[in-house]
């Protein structure tokens, strides 16, 4: 459990929470680009840590309010006050800087800036060559002052055309040894990656962090567990994983956002609506597995549990 010790709403639509242990003791250090998972009534969401990485006493996250999401960000924006306690899982690293890179090119859109802040902090500490391209809506540029204090090599954009022009020039002229890190909404990541690939970037130099807001709640669907014969309905806004847990089933899980691959469940039959980022196209085509945390079904689903 962690306590909310500060709330900052200075940027419209973005709430920054500072969390600390109730006894204000030191917290586990984390790798730049790490995130924590904050649990809420209807589930859990991952948020990048933007504060100090080494022996911190506070964890800082910034949360964009998603009005059509599952409710996690709404609860953080409207339900939380200083002094409240929240259940937080320890930091996890899935977007770390590649230490042998000659240059680190950070490319962020909107709230996708959050993992880049700890990258910038660590780049400054260790004297790494870093460059940031940050596109955001006018007046919605979170962390602008902090970024300016951390690096002289940040470019801010509020219009797409000039951002893309600069991005193309930089991707085409990055010295060999550069690694790129991309975070933002899904379509933004897809566009940047496609551009980089087109300019000859190999996959090993492109690192992405998917934080593209929350998924749509989806339609309800019926599930049968073929081994036990149990049948139940997964409601809109509830994941299959949550529904299985509510039935008392234990399914290994970790990220709960379709990234880590832990909660893969075998599917006997049904039309799966894959929404994860883990299964390959071939695995999706096989139709015999799904990620219970994010993927859903159209109609009746038979799960081999």
């Amino acid at each position: 459990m962690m306590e909310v010790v500060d709330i900052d709403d200075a940027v419209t639509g973005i709430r920054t929470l500072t969390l600390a242990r109730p006894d204000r003791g030191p917290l586990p250090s984390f790798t730049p680009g790490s995130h924590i998972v904050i649990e809420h009534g209807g589930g859990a969401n991952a948020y990048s840590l933007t504060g100090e990485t080494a022996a911190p006493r506070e964890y800082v996250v910034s949360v964009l309010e998603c009005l059509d999401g599952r409710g996690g960000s709404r609860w953080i924006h409207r339900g939380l006050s200083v002094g409240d306690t929240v259940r937080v899982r320890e930091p996890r690293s899935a977007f770390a800087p590649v230490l042998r890179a000659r240059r680190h090119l950070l490319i962020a859109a909107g709230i996708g800036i959050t993992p880049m802040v700890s990258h910038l902090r660590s780049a400054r500490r260790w004297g790494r060559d870093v460059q940031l391209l940050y596109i955001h809506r006018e007046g919605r540029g979170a962390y602008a002052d902090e970024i300016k204090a951390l690096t002289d090599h940040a470019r801010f954009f509020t219009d797409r055309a000039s951002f893309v022009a600069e991005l193309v020039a930089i991707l085409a002229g990055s010295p060999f040894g550069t690694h790129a890190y991309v975070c933002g909404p899904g379509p933004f990541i897809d566009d940047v990656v496609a551009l980089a690939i087109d300019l000859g970037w190999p996959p090993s130099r492109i690192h992405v962090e998917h934080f593209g807001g929350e998924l749509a709640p989806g339609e309800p669907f019926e599930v049968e567990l073929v081994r036990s014969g149990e049948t139940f309905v997964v409601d809109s806004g509830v994941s299959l994983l949550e529904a299985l847990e509510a039935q008392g089933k234990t399914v290994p899980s970790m990220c709960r956002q379709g990234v880590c691959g832990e909660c893969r469940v075998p599917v006997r039959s049904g039309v799966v609506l894959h929404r994860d980022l883990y299964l390959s196209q071939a695995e999706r085509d096989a139709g015999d597995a799904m990620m219970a945390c994010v993927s859903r079904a159209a109609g009746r689903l038979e799960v081999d549990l």
Partner: protein
Amino acid sequence: MSPPLELTSIPPWAVAPLCPDADLTGRHWTVLAIGDDDAAAAIAAEWNDQITAHRPDARPRVHVVDDAGAACEALDADLADAVVGWRLLLAGPAHTCLRVRARALELGAGDDEITVASTEVATREILCAHCRTITTARVELTGTLPCAGCGCKLFVYYHVSRRLGTHLGFAAAAHHRGTQ
């Protein structure tokens, strides 16, 4: 018992001659042909044709050199001003390609930026785990040979150092030496 080689550090092109197509996903290329016969140069010419057919404006830098040392010098020079999008296409005897690959990795290249065609795989460079001497010889994996440095009878293990580009050799009877 030998493990399946795909689970080891031995690349497939170091056990059988392979000639893949040029990697056309890049935008800049260095093509290195190593060896005194025409085999590697012919592969380099084929790759050059594939690249220019794919991108008529591409200007691959093609080097035909005698040995791994000269190849590494050409590689160093090309990489000095390279940008991301650069690819290395390497043709020659596997043991020299392993050396040049090691240099490319040291300079920051990734496996998905290096393509290798091997023209010969019988020769191996064996690093002695005991005296660190490198012995070059025609020897099979799991074969044995005397170390040119300490004379130890070396077992050629199915491991290649990515950093050095050499196979690992250790005394076939090492367990006797310490106890006698």
